[in-house]
């Protein structure tokens, strides 16, 4: 096995990176892939609670890197999906506890074990972000249809190009179709015009996302909700399938998306 390493980054905090990592990992694992997700947000660990695995942590990412345990010991196996693992972040350390080359070494070892490695980047563009992208084969940039999130996403896309980690693909999260229709929210088309990168997913605003994280059961597990389906679609696109975008917007946009190479 030689895993693909995918990092999800955004610049701005609170746009939904952790939720997306959890759901994309779940979606890939539900398609029979062996997946490990890594919480790169050292000091502000959260992927564990979103996945509902917080009570099973013994070792963390920093323990592996500092040699206190073997890689296997830090991989928490999800009981719902036997091919899904989590390597949690350390909670009592900070981003400087590891370096980009540590991440590359860790992922190189892990690549032999699994099909996909999904890394949750912390917000910001400093050390934690650099650690999170160091080993990435592909980076997905996440934004909301909101002015500050789009600006920060543009900054991250520029940095990824400079680090030769581009071209990034875009996930637009929390799209509120009713607000788009009345002209009070940037549309998918607006955001694509501004950022000028490839689109890999659009997640509609969906209250089930909050309910799912309350319970620690990622939405993509059942796949009935719109947001859950949107995450499943991202997983399928990562696997190389051509999946048409859900009809969340006008026909014009739909046609435009069909014309793109996804």
């Amino acid at each position, binding site marked *: 096995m030689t895993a693909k390493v995918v990092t999800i980054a955004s610049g701005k905090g609170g746009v939904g990176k952790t939720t997306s990592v959890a759901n994309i990992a779940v979606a890939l694992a539900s398609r029979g892939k062996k997946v490990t997700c890594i919480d790169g947000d050292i000091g502000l660990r959260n992927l564990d609670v979103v996945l509902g695995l917080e009570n099973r942590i013994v070792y963390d990412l920093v323990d592996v890197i500092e040699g206190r345990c073997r890689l296997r010991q830090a991989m928490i196996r999800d009981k719902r999906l036997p091919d899904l693992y989590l390597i949690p972040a350390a909670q009592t350390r900070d981003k400087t506890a590891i370096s980009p080359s540590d991440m590359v070494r860790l992922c190189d070892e892990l690549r032999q074990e699994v099909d996909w490695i999904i890394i949750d980047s912390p917000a910001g563009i400093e050390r934690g972000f650099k650690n999170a992208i160091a080993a990435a084969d592909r980076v997905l940039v996440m934004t909301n249809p909101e002015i500050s999130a789009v600006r920060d996403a543009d900054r991250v896309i*520029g940095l990824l190009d400079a680090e030769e980690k581009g071209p990034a693909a875009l996930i637009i999260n929390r799209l509120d179709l009713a607000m788009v229709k009345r002209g009070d929210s*940037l549309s998918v088309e607006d955001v694509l015009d*501004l950022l000028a990168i490839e689109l890999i997913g659009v997640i509609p605003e969906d209250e089930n996302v909050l309910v799912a994280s309350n319970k620690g059961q990622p939405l993509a597990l059942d796949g009935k909700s719109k947001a859950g389906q949107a995450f499943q679609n991202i997983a399928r696109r990562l696997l190389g399938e051509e999946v048409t975008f859900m009809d969340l917007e006008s026909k014009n946009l739909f046609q435009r998306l069909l014309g793109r190479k996804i």
Partner: protein
Amino acid sequence: MNFLFRRKKSANSAKERLQLVLIHDRTDLTPVELESLKDDLIETISRHIDIDPTAVKINVAQDGRSQRLVADIPLRSVGRRRGREPRSAAG
């Protein structure tokens, strides 16, 4: 006609504002620096050829993820320049 568009949609404001902000973020070029670049360009070009400084337009245009500096510099025609001979004689 204008009253129809009086209530500007907030999404349009967001997009227009972002377009400008992103150009400056990507190029690290502030509107003030752009003005000073324009003045320098006018001065340099005027040393070689007669131009109308008030008609010069300098903009940063977006082309996908790359930016280009677009300068529109109308030249004064030779005929008009001859007509303005007294000025250069006086100078």
